[in-house]
């Protein structure tokens, strides 16, 4: 009898623990195993990526469609190369897709916003977004500096 209660309560305890783990995996982390989601990689060059981080969001029309998986600096050209993992099959983004680095929320998290173009051709795995369609991060200090010099000149 006593062993029975012990067995039952241990069983319930282990089950509760397992359920808690499943809950943490599903409800809290939303199972974001970004590795095996398929998807493909596109790259883009920006003149400034201040505030962008690894795993920042990549969105289109406000919907998250991927994540930043790499940020490197190109010393020769003096710009930054951002690698993005886009979910789903390749062929969804036109060749003239634009990319902007925008700010979200009051905490100022930066993300990449993709703007669809009209070209019939699409970006393939590993392609670069054309440089004339990228727009780097908006840095307030630079802008203020710009205004001050212009005011000074006029």
């Amino acid at each position: 009898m006593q062993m029975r209660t012990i067995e039952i309560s241990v069983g319930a305890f282990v089950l509760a623990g397992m359920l808690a783990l499943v809950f943490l995996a599903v409800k809290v982390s939303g199972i974001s195993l970004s590795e095996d989601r398929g998807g493909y990689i596109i790259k883009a060059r920006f003149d400034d990526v201040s505030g962008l981080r690894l795993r920042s969001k990549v969105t289109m029309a406000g919907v998250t469609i991927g994540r930043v998986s790499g940020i490197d600096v190109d010393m020769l050209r003096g710009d930054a190369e951002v690698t993005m993992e886009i979910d789903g099959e390749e062929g969804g983004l036109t060749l003239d897709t634009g990319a902007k680095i925008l700010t979200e929320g009051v905490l100022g998290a930066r993300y990449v916003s993709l703007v669809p173009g009209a070209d019939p051709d699409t970006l393939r795995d590993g392609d670069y977004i054309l440089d004339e369609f990228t727009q780097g991060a908006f840095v307030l200090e630079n802008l203020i500096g710009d205004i001050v010099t212009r005011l000074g000149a006029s």
Partner: protein
Amino acid sequence: MIRFMRSVGAQALERLASLGRATVMWGTAMWGLPGPGDFTLMLKQIYHVGVLSLIIIVLSAFSIGAVIALQFHTQLSRFGAEDAVGLGLALTLLRELGPVVTALLFAGRAGSAITAEIGLMKATEQLSSMEMMGVDPLHRIVAPRLWAGIISMPLLTAVFNVVAIYGGVIVAVEWLGSDPGAFWSGMRDAVELWEDVGKGMLKSVAFAVVVTWIAVFQGYDTEPTAEGIGLATTRTVVISSVVVLAMDFLLTLSMYGDF
């Protein structure tokens, strides 16, 4: 002066020797896989160590979750960033507070009990009579407790995290009126399965090994007197807590620190 050096040396040797005894004990106890008869013993220990710790875990988790949510909410609402409460709460719990607080509570609730129990067995010469009967106390007494601790603590940590998150939900969403959608989606966006949940659980397993090891060894190595058992129980709690906190820093450094 010489006497002082001698006492330091004796202390150091004694510490080293007890570390050696602890390692030998742990090694021999963990070596033999539990047989079918040991399973019942282990079940009993999981009951004592895990099930009976549930109440204190649930109560503490609820209060801690509620307090964190309250703190985050009051601070973040000054910047109008209440949406980040869920994210902050979940990351704090999964990465740090869940494993650490569970380990500390576990050391106080279950570790001390294990030490006292084994210490008393030693004082009343139950251990030596077992040896006399040809039963290895390491396998009969020590191993089930070690395994029970290692199995129970990660489960307790998972329960702790879930209860604490709900404690936070009750404060932030139900009471202070954060938006539930933003609360959960912010949490889901930031929390990664392996990076946060997995590594937190890994920490908890590491703490489980160390805390149960310390508890069992202190009992096994105690001075077989009433005073000795008291001291050993105190030492279990003190050493476990200090080691858990120090280990937490090292684990965090190796898991999340990029250097």
